[in-house]
């Protein structure tokens, strides 16, 4: 092939919950290519399967059928542990509900993926501090999530996602719990980081304002992709 294979390639991916009459086809045959460095927003009404798509992309969930190639590697055949390794080394997550460990300092939360990467303690702390500084939380390293505002908690989550030095950031409604001003701050932060680290970002959102930050917007309806448009931003 003349072209590099895309970083992410989905072919005929389905995700079915339940059996028989209760069967729900959350993903109903998705074909999707995402290139390195793209910022893709996935939009759609509730129940359209956009979160399921993100979870499958993030190896948090397994497709029922179809092919998922990550950097040319077939994911469907991997074991649970191999998928954990993929998450560990290539993927970073940002959730709507932050998903920080309670009663655990910002620093320790950010350090978590680095522990599983097997880095020595000094390096873990240095990188965690650096990540926290990058998201503007210098001086808050010792705070528990309960002592931080929603926006600050999401920044900790972003720092955690960045600390592992991933190739792809998967964000599920990262601004869903935040007011407009905080949302804009978070989106600006994501864009800045993306530029610095040449990250690929896949973000699920239902807000047009947030989707406008992406250079490609995918619409989903009933588990299928109904439109796939480049925004004017893409060069």
């Amino acid at each position, binding site marked *: 092939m003349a072209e590099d294979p895309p970083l992410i390639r989905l072919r005929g991916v389905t995700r079915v919950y339940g059996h028989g009459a209760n069967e729900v086809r959350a993903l109903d045959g998705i074909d999707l290519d995402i290139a390195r460095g793209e910022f893709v927003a996935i939009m759609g009404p509730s129940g359209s399967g956009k979160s399921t798509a993100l979870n499958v992309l993030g190896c948090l969930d397994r497709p029922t059928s179809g092919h998922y190639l990550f950097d040319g590697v077939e994911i469907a055949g991997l074991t649970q542990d191999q998928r954990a390794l993929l998450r560990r080394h290539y993927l970073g997550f940002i959730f709507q509900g932050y998903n920080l*460990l309670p009663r655990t300092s910002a620093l320790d939360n950010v350090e978590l993926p680095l522990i*599983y990467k097997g880095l020595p303690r000094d390096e873990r702390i240095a990188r965690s501090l650096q990540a926290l500084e990058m998201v503007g939380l210098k001086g808050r390293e010792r705070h528990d999530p309960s002592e931080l505002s929603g926006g600050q908690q999401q920044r900790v989550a972003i720092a955690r996602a960045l600390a592992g030095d991933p190739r792809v950031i998967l964000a599920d409604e990262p601004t869903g719990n935040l007011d407009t001003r905080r949302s804009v701050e978070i989106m600006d932060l994501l864009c800045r980081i993306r530029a610095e680290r040449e990250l690929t970002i896949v973000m699920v959102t239902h807000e047009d304002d947030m989707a406008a930050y992406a250079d490609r917007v995918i619409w989903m309806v009933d588990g299928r992709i109904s439109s796939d448009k480049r925004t004017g931003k893409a060069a």
Partner: protein
Amino acid sequence: MVWETARLAIRAIFRNALRSFLTVLGIVIGVASVITMVTVGQGSSAQVTADVARLGTNILMVRPGRTAMGPPSNISGGAQPRSFTLRDVDRLIDAVPQIATAAPVSSGSTTVVAGGENHRTQITATDARYLEASDWPLALGRNFADAEARAGAAVCILGETVRQQIFGDADPVGQSLRLESLSCEVIGVLTARGASSFGSDQDDVLLMPIRTFQRRIVGNTDVGTIYVRVADGVATEDATTEITYLLRDLRRIGPAEEDDFSVLDMKQLASMLTQITGVLTGLLAAVAAVSLLVGGIGIMNIMLVSVTERTREIGIRLAVGAQSRQVLLQFLVEAVVLSLLGGILGSVVGLALAAVAAHFMAIPFTPDPVVVVMAFAFSALVGVLFGYFPARRAARLDPIEALRRE
């Protein structure tokens, strides 16, 4: 990685200080109560066994009245049962060949006064044969002389407690003390025996010649009890039969009448005591088992209540790249550390409580490693069971499932 996992586990323990504390507390209560109760139970049994051995299984106590146990009955029997006399004792020794020796015993209580100290104690009024009949050697001084016993001389032999209370560690032989209006010379001190199985202090006693007691203190010629020591190699049952025949004859009891005295075999008493303590130990063990169970349920509750939160935690760890066995190892280490901590603390607390109880109950402190190990093992099992298995279920889920769990 093992060291990292241990660090993660320790961190998680401190992060959830309250939950960890409650878990440890549950284990401590369970382990401590089992160890305390079983140790105290075994101590009591050991005490009874020792008492029984000391009691001698070849001693009979002959008492007026029909009751086999307790004080000679003069309430239930209606009429006052006839007491024995000193002549009955001599006749028993002469006529029953199975008897090695016998001694009359009457009891009363009095206040002993000497050198500004006073102490209330029991009088055992007897004669020179008592020490042999009850197998109780002297620590100091001498036994009653036959002449003193016959004449009702004002002499006495002290139990260790009385000696301590009145004379301290000084040698009391040759000193005199007052029993109400009677002045009495100390001629000997008994060896210390400690507490009896019923908890009374056997050393809180003063021996005096029975004639002295009869004449100078109670003013009658009654003998309360006859202590009989059966000759070696003779069955106590045979001696009991002979004594019963002879006493029925002496007391002119008709063939249709019931005995107005009783012969108490220490062997029976011994087996009864052993039975009672056996039942008590069983009871204590049952109570202890219940507390262990309650401790276990406590641990279970805490673990189950925290399953939702822990499931989310597992989801987060899996999402950032932990493999399920890493998460499980952490949870296992956590459960083991908490169980060990609880087990060690519980053992220490349990043994300490048992030691204190043994001290106050005056029973031997006999810690049993088997009990400690079993209590320990059970609590560890509960801790690991309820700490580890819910985690195992969670760690096998896809991360998104674990994260969604509410």
